[in-house]
C-alpha cells in the first residue's frame, strides 16, 4: 500500500471504535448495544487490515478472520440471550438487568 498513510487508517479505526463505544455505553436498548459492539469489532478489523497492508504481511488478515468468527459467535449468543430477555421481561432495556447491584 503506497498512498494511504497508516496514520489515517488508524484514525478511521479509532473513530469507528469511539462511535461504537459511545453506542454501547449510551444506548439502553440491548439490541443497539449489540450492533454497536459489531461496529467496535469492525473498527479493530480496520486497524488489523491496515497494519497488515503496511507491512505487507498476511497476519493482519488472519487476525481479521479470527475477529470475524468472534463477531459471529458473539452475535449468535447475544441474540439468543436477547430472545430470553424479551421473553422474561417483555423489554430489551439493559437497566432491567441490574440484580447484581452491590
Amino acid at each position, binding site marked *: 500500500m503506497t498512498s494511504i498513510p497508516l496514520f489515517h487508517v488508524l484514525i478511521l479505526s479509532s473513530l469507528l471504535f469511539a462511535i461504537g463505544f459511545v453506542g*454501547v*455505553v*449510551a444506548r*439502553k436498548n440491548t439490541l443497539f448495544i449489540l450492533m454497536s459492539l459489531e461496529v467496535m469489532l469492525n473498527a479493530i478489523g480496520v486497524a488489523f487490515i491496515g497494519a497488515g497492508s503496511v507491512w505487507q504481511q498476511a497476519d493482519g488478515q488472519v487476525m481479521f478472520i479470527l475477529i470475524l468468527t468472534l463477531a459471529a459467535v458473539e452475535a449468535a449468543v447475544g441474540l439468543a440471550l436477547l430472545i430470553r430477555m424479551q421473553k422474561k421481561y417483555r423489554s430489551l432495556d*439493559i437497566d432491567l438487568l*441490574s*440484580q*447484581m*447491584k*452491590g
Partner: protein
Amino acid sequence: MNVLLASLPFYPLVSFLLLIVFGKKLSWQLAATISVSSMAIAALVSAMLLVDLSVSQHQVMTVNLWHWFDLTNEAGNAEVNVRFYLDGLSAVMISVVTGVGFLIHLFAAIYMKSDANFSRFMAYMNLFIVAMLILVLADNLVLLYLGWEGVGLCSFLLIGFWYHEKANVLAARKAFIVTRIGDTSMAIGLLLLFTTFGELNIEAVTTLAQQANELTGLENTALADDIYWIALLLLGGAVGKSAQLPLQTWLPDAMAGPTPVSALIHAATMVTAGVYLIARMHGIFLLSPEVMNYVAWLGALTLILAGIAALAQTDIKRVLAYSTMSQIGYMMLALGAGAWSAGVFHLMTHAFFKALLFLTAGAVIYALHHQQNLFKMGGLLKKLPFESGLFIIGLICLMALPGTSGFFSKEAIIAQLWSSETAGPMLWWGAILGALLTSIYSCRLFFLGFLGNARFNENIHPEKSHLLRAALVVLALLSLFGGLINIDLSLVFNAPVTSANEVEPSWLHTVAIITPFIGIIFSWFYFKNYRITHSVSAKYLLQANESKFIVFCRQGLGFDSLYNLLFIKPYQWLAQINKNDIFDQIIMVNVWYVNLWHDALIVVQNGALRWYLAAFGLAIMLLIGVSFL
C-alpha cells in the same frame, strides 16, 4: 532419675485424659475403675516414696523432668525447670493429697454413680490431683504457680459441676474471682521476688535471702523492704486460696459443689495450699517478722469470726465450711507464730477428720434425699447409727478431745503461741476462744442433726455399699490415730523462731485441755431444746433462729454485703456509665471510616452494566492518557 517421683502426677493425668477423651462412652464400672485405680496407684507410689525418703540418707529427693524456659534480668539468670523436689514437707503433702484423695475418689465413685456426667466429674477430680501434686512437688515458684492456678481451675469447674442451676454457677464464679485476687497478688510477689533475687528456685531463694541477712543484716535496708513486700504479697495469695480474712467469702458458697468436692478440695487439700505456700517459703517469712505477725493475727481473726459464723448456720455443709476456715485459721496462726511443724501437722490431721466429716455429711444428705438443712434433720442417731458414729469421731477430733489426732496437732500449736516472738499471750487467748467456739458449734451441729426428734418426713435410704463404708472407716481410723504419726520436719524448718523470753505460766496446758469440755458442758445446757426429744417443730426452731443478729452471723458477718457495697456496686456503676466503652468508640472511628467508603462505593456497584462499561472505558482512557505524560 527417680522414676517413682517423676511419674507420680502422671497416673491421675493419664486417667484424666482417658476419661475426658472417651467421656460418656465409658460405662460407670470402667470410668470408676480407671479413676479410682489411678488414685490407688498414686497413693501406693507416695507411700513408697515416703519409705524411700525416710530410709535414705539424703534429706531431699529431686528429679528433673525437662528444661522449661529461662528467665533473665540484671539480677541474674533463672533456669525454670519442670523439676520435682521432695522433702519432709512435700512428702506430708503428697501423702495427704494421694491418700485422702484416693479415699474420697472411692467415695465419690459410689456417691456420684447415678450422675449423667459421672466420667466428667471423675476427670475433673483427677485433674485436680494432678495440679495439686505439681503444686506441692514444684521445685521452683513458676511450676508451683502452674499447679496453683490448676487447682483453682479445677475448683471452679467442680463447684459449677451442676451448672444447670444458677446458684452453683454464681458460686463457681465468685470462688474463681475472689481467689484470682489473691493469685494476682501472688504473681506480683513472684515477679518482685525475681527482680530482687534473680532466682525462682525455692531453695536458692531461701539461701540467698539468708546469706544477705547474715552478710549485712537486714535492718532498714532496701532489701528488707523488698522482702517485706514479697512476704506480704505471697501472704495475699495464700489468704485467697486458703479462704482467710479478708478473702474468705468464697468458701461457704463453694459448698454448692458435690459433697466429695467439698471434702477433697474445699476441706482437705486445696484450701491448705496457702498454708503450704507459707510453710514452703518460710525462709522469706522468717526475715520479715512483721508479716509473720500479720499472718498470726489474720489466722486468729479468721479463727474466731468463722467460729461465730458457724454457730448460726442452718446448712450442715456450711457449718463444716466455716469450720474449715476456722481450722485453717489455726494453721495460719501456727505459721505466724513460727510453729511450722505444728501448723503442717494440723494441716494433715485436719485433712483426715474434715474429709471424714464432709463425707459422712454427704452420706447423711444422700440418705435424706438431698436435705441439707439441719433444722429438718434430727434424731439421726437411731436411724443412721453407722454414719452417726463416724460423725461423732469426726467431731471429737475437730473439738480436739484428748487422744484424738486433732488434740495432738492443736495442742502443739497452742503450746507454742504464748512464748513466740511473733505471737504472744493475746493470740494464745484468741486460740483458746477459737477452741471454745469450735466445741460449741460442733455440739450444736451434733444436737441439731443427730439428737432430738426427727423433723423430716421422708423415708431414709442410706447407701449400704461396702466400698463406701470402707473408705469412711479408714478415714475414721486415720482421724483417731493420725495424731500418732510422728512427722519430723525439723530438717525442713531448721530455724526455730521461738525463744523463751517470757516465762510460761504453769496453767497453760490445763486451760487448753479443758477448754473443749467447757464448751461441751455449756452447749449441753444452752442447746437443750435441740437435744431432748419433745414436740418442738422445725418451724418453731427456725423462727427462734431468725433474730437479726443470728441472720447477720449466718451471712458470714456481713462481709458479702460490705464487699458488695465497696467493690461490686462502684464497679457496676462504672460499667454502667461506661457502657459505650470509650476505647470502643475510638475503635469505632475505623468502622465509621470503612462504612463511609462502603456507602460511597456502593453507589458505583449499581448493577447497571453500562455504568461498568463506562468506568472501564474511563479507566482505559486514563491509562492511555498517563502514557502520554
